[in-house]
């Protein structure tokens, strides 16, 4: 795996200088490679992982499972890309199993999401059925356990 990507995937704020020190390479070298990765579309965005549940007022998230009628020429792509355009939609994935598309949606209330599904997603041509699962609590996101308790401490000095 690309070492720069591994480092950035853990910490999007790592600077080229910091990455260069970790890899024993020059800063210019690392900066150039990051630029290339950005230009090639490998690096798409630098994001912050937020535990929204820590806030008093938070968003509501839902996972939609969609069954889709296959279209002769475009397969799943046409309907999936259409769904992806809505700003409420956070992710769209083609999955194996009982359903075809798995869609995560963010809204301000359950009602807002329910209307969004009823008005925007369910009526789409090709969408045969929808099943909405509201997320009640998130335990782990992007490899980070959100419910972690403080770790036991090591002794401060050991031989």
């Amino acid at each position, binding site marked *: 795996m690309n070492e720069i990507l591994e*480092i950035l995937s853990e910490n999007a704020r790592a600077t080229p200088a*910091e990455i260069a*020190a*970790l*890899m*024993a390479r020059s800063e210019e070298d690392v900066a150039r490679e990051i630029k290339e990765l950005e230009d090639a579309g490998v690096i798409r965005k630098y994001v912050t992982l937020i535990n929204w549940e820590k806030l008093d007022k938070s968003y509501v998230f839902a996972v939609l499972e969609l069954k889709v009628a296959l279209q002769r020429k475009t397969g799943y792509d046409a309907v999936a890309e259409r769904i992806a355009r809505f700003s409420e939609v956070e992710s769209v994935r083609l999955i194996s199993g009982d359903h075809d598309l798995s869609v995560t949606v963010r809204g301000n209330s359950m009602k807002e999401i329910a209307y969004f599904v009823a008005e925007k997603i369910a009526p789409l041509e090709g969408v045969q059925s929808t099943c909405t699962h509201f997320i009640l609590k998130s335990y782990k996101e992007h490899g980070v356990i959100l419910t972690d308790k403080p*770790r036991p401490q*090591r*002794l*401060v*000095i*050991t*031989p």
Partner: protein
Amino acid sequence: MKQSLKNVSLPAWNCEAHLNRTVRDMPPSGIRKFFDLVSEMEGAISLGVGEPDFVTPWHVREACIYSLESGNTHYTSNKGMPELRQAICDQVKKSSGLDYDPAEQILITTGVSEAVDLAFRATLNPGDEAIVPEPCYVAYTPDIVLAGGVARAAPTRLENEFRLQPEDVSAAITEKTRALLLSYPNNPTGAIMTRADLEELADVVVEHDLLVISDEVYAELTYSGSHVSFAQLEGMQERTVILNGLSKSHAMTGWRIGYALGDPALVGAMTKVHQYTMLCAPTMAQVAALEALQKGEEEMQQMRHEYNLRRRMFVSGLNRIGLDCFEPRGAFYAFPSVRAWGLSSETFAERLLHEQKVAVVPGNVFGTSGEGFLRCSYATSREELIEALDRIETFLSGL
């Protein structure tokens, strides 16, 4: 009755007089003083910790929990669980090409510390001498003394990147020398010994018919090339006892699982002492160790990779701010020199702690040849390492 008891004056109990003289006269570890200082300080960054900052991977902990739920709470064989002995022998064969018979040539111990103790106790007669390269881990010399032996230090030096030189071994040899201890990759220096370095020692070892006790607990944390054991040299396997464990490689310090590999007669002798003192290593920890060996390769590689990233960043950082440091190729320690700053290791470390709240261990704690150096562990998070470098830089600018 009460009355008469009150009138009897008992002679004062003097506990000191009942202590073993060797134990009573043994100085406490030099690390103790720093431990107390750091413990009382709020907001200190400690680079003094000699263990991984990673928690044991979950699947290993889970295997142990499952084993406890199943009621696996009995003794194991004195030598350790047969499956674990087999798994270790298989792994050693794979990594070094060395064959060891799981029935007779391996003993599972309660941490490598026990294995070190057993190796000296099983081999030294009263007055026998063992050579200990310094600077080194703090337990070897006390273990030798407790076994009735005498420790002879062989200094290692910065100009050789702290690799042990044959002439320094020769200089420490007397007619009473029986054993040579090797401890590479090294705590506290981070030095390693290449195959060529070891081959130069082999001549001295054979000439004086020495047993080699090789503590290789940091073997898996080697960052350039792969670790070479003295036992891998031609004809040296028989006279070498390898001591290793899972503490550092698999982030399992608290589990206390180590092992010894060697000649059946020596392993048998060590097993005898182990049988009468420890009986067996904790069963639950042996179960966890088996899981770690069988399914923990990937996490081990990931941890080594992370140490390596930190090593590059931290060592170049030390050199940048003015603490000269040779490149440590193993373990997770950097051993920078403070000689250019005109302070002793201890004064430097104490002032750094008081003025900038960074804890390091003065090199002289690990032997007189460690004077002028500091042991800095990079088994701590990148953020802390960066902050520590900043603070050390500030400290240096005030000197």
